[in-house]
Structure formats: C-alpha cells, structure tokens
C-alpha cells in the first residue's frame, strides 16, 4: 500500500502557494501605487481588515462584524443539501444508465438537452415554484451538481472492463454484491471526478441561489454589499468562497480516500 500523495521536499509543497502569493503582490502594487482607485479595487490590507472584522469581531462592532459564522453555516447547509440530493440521484441513475443500454437510451437525450440550459434560466422558474429562500437555492445547487455527477458515473461504469465483471461472476458474485464490490470501485476514478466537479459547481450555484433575497449566506453577503457599495466586502466574500470551495474539494477527496480502498489505490 504505497501512499501516492506527494510528500516531497518543501519546494514542491510551496509550489501551490506561488500563484496566490504572486497575485497578492501584484494586487498590492496595483492598488498601493494608485493605478487602480480604491473604489474599484481596495487595498489588500483593507480587505484583510474587513475580513478580520467580518470573521472574528462580535456583532455590533461595525457593519457586517461577526456575521461570518452564521453566513458560513447557512451557505454550507444549502450546499450540502443540494449536493447530497445530486449525489443521491446522480450516482444510482448514472450507474444504471451506464450498465443498461435501454435506460441510457431513455435518459441521455433528455439529460443532455437539460444540461445545455444555463442554471440562471432556472432561477425565475425556481423562485415561482419554491419561493424565495432555502428551497430555491437547494434546487439550483442540486440541479447544477447533478449533471457532472451523473455523466461521470455513467461514463465510469460504462468503461468498466467486462472481464472484471465476468471474473466476479465466475467467483460466484451475484448482481447486488457485484455492484458494490466490483462495478462502483472499478468506476471510482470517474465517480470521484464527477463528485469533485459537482462540489465545485455547487458553490458556484449557491451564490446564484442566494442572489434572490435570502437574509443570510455568503452569496447574500456579496449581493448586499453590492447594494451598499462595499466593494471590500464583495472581495472578502469572493475570497472566502474560493477558500471554502477549495477546502471542500480537499475534504471530499480525503473523505472518499478514507472510506473507499478503490479511491485510495487506483492506479
């Protein structure tokens, strides 16, 4: 059992941070020298101060102070609900559709047509159906995350070598156990790719879903700040979503590797 994660020297560990560091450096120079005025792009120091206030100060100690935890929990719950729904429908449907040509024929045209519809066009409809609030957001997140999860699961399952299934069958493995012991593990790299794409897109659609007047959440924060012209808060919101999105991606991957041998050991 060889651990394939890169535990190289510090140089290779530092590599992922080169780009963000460079980015902040350029940002500092651009706004420090006045090339970009503060009402277009606030200085990183100001943004950092705003972020500190937003995250760590008590409520009442300034605009937006201390709201982070509440927003974070609200948004995370919406993402998890929507993502969970997409997983619960996407993986079983994808697996069946990858195995049974009939199901695939029935589903593929419709799903690929719906996939072409941009998420934002669902927003007005979702607001009419579900009203303003958590249901609309969860619906949009689930809808958006469903497609990459479904499509990747389907592709993964379809590419499983029939020889592996035959080997299982001759060793006396029946269909149900074969699904969990052979089919899904063999398709695991694709399934992981689908889940990670789905998780990423969930955060994107979260903001869309929160644009519509929910009181809390990171998307609502950004919208609110736009109305009040608080560009520093907008930048804080963007950076926080980027960080949380990345952490979710890493967390998801680690979780899968922890739970499934096939996620740890695939070549």
């Amino acid at each position, binding site marked *: *059992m*060889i651990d394939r994660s890169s535990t190289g020297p510090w140089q290779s560990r530092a590599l992922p941070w080169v780009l963000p560091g460079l980015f902040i450096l350029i940002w500092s120079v651009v706004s420090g020298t006045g090339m970009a005025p503060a009402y277009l792009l606030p200085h990183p120091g100001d943004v950092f101060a705003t972020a500190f206030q937003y995250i760590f100060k008590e409520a009442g100690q300034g605009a937006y102070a201390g709201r982070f935890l509440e927003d974070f929990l609200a948004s995370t719950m919406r993402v998890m609900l929507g993502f969970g729904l997409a997983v619960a429908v996407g993986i079983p449907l994808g697996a069946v559709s990858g195995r049974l040509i009939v199901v695939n024929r029935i589903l593929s045209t419709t799903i690929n047509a719906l996939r072409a519809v941009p998420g934002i066009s669902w927003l007005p409809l979702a607001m009419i159906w579900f009203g303003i609030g958590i249901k609309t957001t969860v619906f949009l997140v689930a809808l958006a995350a469903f497609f990459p999860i479904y499509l990747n699961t389907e592709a993964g399952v379809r590419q499983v*070598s029939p*020889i*592996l299934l*035959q*080997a*299982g*069958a*001759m*060793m*006396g*493995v029946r269909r149900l*156990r074969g699904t969990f*012991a*052979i089919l899904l*593990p*063999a398709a*695991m790299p694709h399934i992981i790719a689908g889940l990670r794409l789905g998780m990423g897109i969930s955060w994107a659609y979260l903001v869309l879903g929160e644009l519509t007047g929910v009181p809390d959440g990171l998307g609502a924060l950004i919208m609110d700040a736009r109305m009040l012209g608080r560009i520093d808060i907008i930048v804080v919101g963007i950076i926080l979503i980027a960080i949380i999105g990345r952490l979710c991606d890493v967390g998801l991957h680690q979780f899968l590797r922890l739970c499934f*041998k*096939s996620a*740890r*050991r*695939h*070549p």
Partner: protein
Amino acid sequence: MRTRLHIVKNEPQPSQAPVVFEIDQLCKRFKTNGSGDVSVLKDITFMARRGEMICILGQSGCGKSTLLKILAGFMPPTSGSVRLNGRPVRRPGPDRCMVFQEDALFPWLTVRENIAFGLKDRRMDRDTKKREIDRFLSLVDLTDFENYLPQEISGGMKQRVSLARVLILQPEVLLMDEPFAALDAQTREEMQNLLLALWQKFKHTILFVTHDVGEAVLLAERILLFEKGPGRIREDITISLPRPRRKDTNAYFLNCRSMTAKIKAIGVEG
C-alpha cells in the same frame, strides 16, 4: 454424434475416472451486420474426465476462446449443450473457474485481497479463511507480496494471483484462456511448471486453450486440435509422453513436430 473424433491409436489404457464435463454438439453463430450469420463453432462434441488436462490447440480465430466463454457460462451457445456432472451449465459459477489471458485482477485490491475475494460469501470462520488464504499465497509463492497492489507486481506474478484466486474456490474445472501467452519465455516456462505442480497436487480437470504447440505438448494429456471457419475439432490426440516431460528430449521434439505437421496440413486444406 462423435464422427469428428479420431482417437489416435497408441492410446494408453483408457482412464477410469468419471466424466465431469460433457460438451454435446455445440454450435455458436454470431449475427453480423448485413450478410447473415457467421458460424464460429460447429458441432463441438467431447467430454472431459475428472483430473484430465486437455489442451485446445488452434490458430487464432478458430473459436477456441469463444468455446471457453460458453463453457464458463459467459455466453449461451446457439445450440447444443454443456453439462457439468450431468447438470446443464447456464450461468457462470465457482465450479468452473476461468484464468484470463489479460489482467483481470481487481486493481484496487492487494494480492491477498484479490485471492480472498471469492471466499467472502462462503460460510467459513475467520481462522479457516485466513489459513486458506495463507496456504494459497504460499502455493503460488507470493507470501512476501501479499500486500502489494496488482500494478506493483510483474505479469507473471499477476497470473499467479489469477491462478490462486480461483484455485482457492476449489473449482471442478479450470478453464484457462491462453493464460501465459503474454509472458516472456522464461516466466512462461516457470508458470507451466507451477501449473503442472498444482495440477498434480489438486487433480483439477483443466481445459487449457493455447496456440503454442510446445506448450500443448508439454502440458496436455489430450490435445483437441481445432480448425477454423467454422471452428471445429479436427482431431482428438492423446499425448502419452511420460511425466515429468522435458523440453530437451527427442520424444518431446518428435511430438511437437508431428503436431506442427498436422496443423500445417489443416492450413493447406483450408
């Protein structure tokens, strides 16, 4: 019914072991797009006695792999029947295990887990299971590699795992589809010797598909010589060389030569 069988004269005393595998007038046709069917197997009839090592020898495209797939239960024949111990074969099962030519191990399981895979559903207490797995690991000489993944071991080792994971299920019949064809010459010879040793120990009935004359003569008690278009049994030849057989003896060489001549004759006629 058995007109296609020509038993060679110098057969030793007929084996008294009971018949386990009966293949009767098996035909297989595949539908092609357009011009009708292609007949891949025609009137395949033979039987295998318990503990027999039978090699199915023929050029590529003579339907020998298709035959093995039908015997394993992976695909149904167009007509004819396959019986194991008198019962018709309809689906794959652990009484007829296949060793594939290509790598068919589960890449996310270690050597040990791959070998243990088929035992999972068996009612067996933990200790017995563990002992069985240990025993088969050592039989194929992979004890030191039990925690390796298939991607980390050589082709020969992979085929040893493939062998162990089916032997541990104690199948009645072993179906081997050119299992050593992708290995280098030296590893192939090691594997052939290992197979013979295991066969001597367990007395499985083995159907071994190959296109390698030398391999067939080394392993087989009987060789079913196939011709193609459609695939059918040309001749049922008994190899009466004493064991252990050595590749550097005259007798072995003569057998190979006569077998090669027979194959050439088929080619000329066809």
